[in-house]
């Protein structure tokens, strides 16, 4: 029960932020990929940057554990391309379709229904997919710092630095957008 309440309350805030910042709009998703409106890429870079600083600092001082997804280059690349194509066609992300419905955009409901069907079909073929060349081998769960062989304090500082770079990139993209796209 407490799991439901926590998930639901975190969701409330997530949905509110997304709606207020218009990140749940088809115009923002398609606009981003047509390089006309870079609101979503900027918010994403900002979240990654601030998040890297917060998460790595919290982990360094022992408040949290990492939850890194396994790296299987082939399957993630193919899935990523299909996902990107799907996102441009539907005009929403998996995490923004419910918000779109919440503010009255009924087209996202068709996306949700099709997504559930897609999820069921994926479940059925998962045993085959997992062992096929389309998935490929898993090469551990590395983070950027691991690629440079860093650990401990140097891993923390490096990751905080990368977070800062992401924030800088977000503001750089904003500058370029204002200069060339508006």
């Amino acid at each position, binding site marked *: 029960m407490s799991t439901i309440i926590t998930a639901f309350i975190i969701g409330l*805030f997530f949905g509110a932020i*997304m709606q207020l910042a218009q990140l749940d709009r088809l115009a923002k998703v398609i606009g981003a990929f047509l390089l006309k409106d870079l609101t979503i890429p900027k918010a994403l870079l900002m979240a990654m940057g601030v*998040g890297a600083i917060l998460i790595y600092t919290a982990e360094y001082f022992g408040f949290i554990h990492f939850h890194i997804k396994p790296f299987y280059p082939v399957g*993630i690349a193919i899935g*990523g391309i299909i*996902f990107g194509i799907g996102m*441009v066609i539907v005009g929403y992300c998996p995490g923004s379709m*419910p918000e779109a419905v919440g503010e009255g955009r009924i087209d996202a409901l068709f996306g949700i229904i099709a997504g559930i069907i897609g999820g*069921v079909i994926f479940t059925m073929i998962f045993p085959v997919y997992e062992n096929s060349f389309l998935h490929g081998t898993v090469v551990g769960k590395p983070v950027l710092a691991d690629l440079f062989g860093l650990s401990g304090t140097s891993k923390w500082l490096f990751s905080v630095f990368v977070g800062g770079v992401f924030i800088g990139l977000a503001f750089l993209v904003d500058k370029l957008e204002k200069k060339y796209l508006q």
Partner: protein
Amino acid sequence: MNNDKPIMGWAVAGTLFAIINLITFIVANRPIGASTAFPYIGNVIFPAIENEYWKEIKTSGFWEAWFLLGGLIGAFITSKLTKTFRFTLTPIYWEKNLQMGTVSRVVFAFVGGFLLIFGARMAGGCTSGHMFSGGMQLAVSSLWFALFAFIGGLVAANLIYRRRYRD
């Protein structure tokens, strides 16, 4: 269209996302994610398929389904409070800027929604789980995913919408 400025700017929104993700790590011992909710709900509706994937996703999927319900209600509340709630089947952008109609919107939403979740599950995450949560942890898998999702999206958007687009 598009002249209506967001009530919350991208920098504030991004920062708040980072903070609520940190809170999620602390209170739920997991990151934010969304795409597992879809096969989860599908498997609840069609309980016949109890294979190993179901065992793998049921804990995450349960959490994410309630998280997304919260997301829907949260967006409903703020859209009502800020008077931005609007019942629409076809976004104005779709009709004015992309010059397409209602039938194509429904068909596109359906086809796209299928590919979106199918691709996300192949890759093990979506914008939330991979790009936001994985990106914040600087996970190689998630940055790799973001790269290919952007390539797929850029190519698709330019093939499908570029010649239709009007400012």
